[in-house]
């Protein structure tokens, strides 16, 4: 029997598959070729840098975790962090935007509507007329850029990118080891930071007027070999200076994928 014969389907079967085809007919990917190429180029550059041994050995990477964050560390206390979102892919920044402090849209632009220039820093920040700040975070390439944008918007913050040690058991979660004096802000955190329904990527709505003095929006993005794995965030009392990873939950037997 030839493969031509094998391709033949009963009319009813063909109809079923046609129905499946029709179920998404007309759907189109808005992302431009230029954006995809830019994303691929960035990723390749990062991968080459990692392969070339920047940070040299894994031990050096682990040792460097505590000082990686240009803006100080972030805390995410076990069972008390406000949230942690794993990311869809190694370069979730594909669809990310850059700083746009003057923006007025409640929802950040979606795929294909962003210029390549907005894909560099991995976030979009939109100040709303009601005083809230929309923050959409993808893969952060330069945490100081987000920190500066939030500072300018009047949001006290600690933004950190931390590297996940090789071999880390992600089934037990990951968080920064809380430093002395740093603790979750409690109920006010849920008022200061909300998560609107919307796209799958991480979008926070920050209410600066609700944030008590001495509290910080603390956001830590855990990355591995240039890929964003988890972003944790919350409102914390005190400023976390460094991020030394620790497990956040008990082991469930899964390996880090």
């Amino acid at each position: 029997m030839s493969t031509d014969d094998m391709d033949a389907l009963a009319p009813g079967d063909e109809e079923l598959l046609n129905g499946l085809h029709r179920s998404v007919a007309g759907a189109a990917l808005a992302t431009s070729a230029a954006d995809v190429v830019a994303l691929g180029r960035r990723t390749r550059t990062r991968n080459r840098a990692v392969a070339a041994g920047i940070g040299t050995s894994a031990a050096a990477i682990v040792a460097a975790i505590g000082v990686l964050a240009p803006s100080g560390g972030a805390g995410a206390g076990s069972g008390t962090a406000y949230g942690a979102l794993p990311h869809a892919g190694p370069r979730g920044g594909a669809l990310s935007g850059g700083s746009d402090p003057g923006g007025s849209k409640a929802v950040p632009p979606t795929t294909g509507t962003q210029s390549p220039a907005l894909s560099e820093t991995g976030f979009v920040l939109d100040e709303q007329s009601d005083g809230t700040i929309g923050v959409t975070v993808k893969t952060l390439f330069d945490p100081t850029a987000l920190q500066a944008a939030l500072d300018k918007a009047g949001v006290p913050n600690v933004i950190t990118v931390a590297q996940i040690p090789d071999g880390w058991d992600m089934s037990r979660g990951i968080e920064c080891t809380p430093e002395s004096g740093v603790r979750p802000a409690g109920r006010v955190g849920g008022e200061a930071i909300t998560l609107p329904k919307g796209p799958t990527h991480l979008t926070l709505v920050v209410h600066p007027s609700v944030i008590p003095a001495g509290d910080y929006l603390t956001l830590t993005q855990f990355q591995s070999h240039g890929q964003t794995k988890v972003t944790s965030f919350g409102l914390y009392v005190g400023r976390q200076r460094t991020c030394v990873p620790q497990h956040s939950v008990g082991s469930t037997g899964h390996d880090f994928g």
Partner: protein
Amino acid sequence: MDRGSEDFEAFYEGHRDPCFRAVLATVSDRHLAEELTAEAFARAWGHWRKVRRHPAPAAWVVRTALNTHISWWRRRRREVPWDAATVGALEREPADDDATVVDLALRAALRKLPARQREVVVLRVFLDLDTRSTAAALGVAPGTVQSHLHRAIKALRAELEETNEREEITR
């Protein structure tokens, strides 16, 4: 622009929508499907010299996107519940306003298929690959593809009938 980039862009323009539809049908979340597809194409660009020699480069893209989705889902499943209630639900609703009830039922049935059957259906239906090309893309024998396809169709049909019966009962 070099020849490789021109090749890739021609490939991208010719296959972006079919690949996107294949991923969308499988994950049923438009935003996620966009991210996964763009990500997979970016990887294809990064490995274009290798991918262009693949028996079916579009199949490589779709499989990469769906594998990324599996990894994402495994992580999300075990990490999202991390005190999510403090600030409200983190779970997102599928963003696909255009789909009809039948469309959603078909896609739900597709997602319930075993991975290999689902791959065969996706490559066959959305990339319009024949049995031989599908087999080459998956690295299996043509007979295996045919077997998976027939089992998949049988399972899809059964799932849809079950859905219809449930709807009849609820009316």
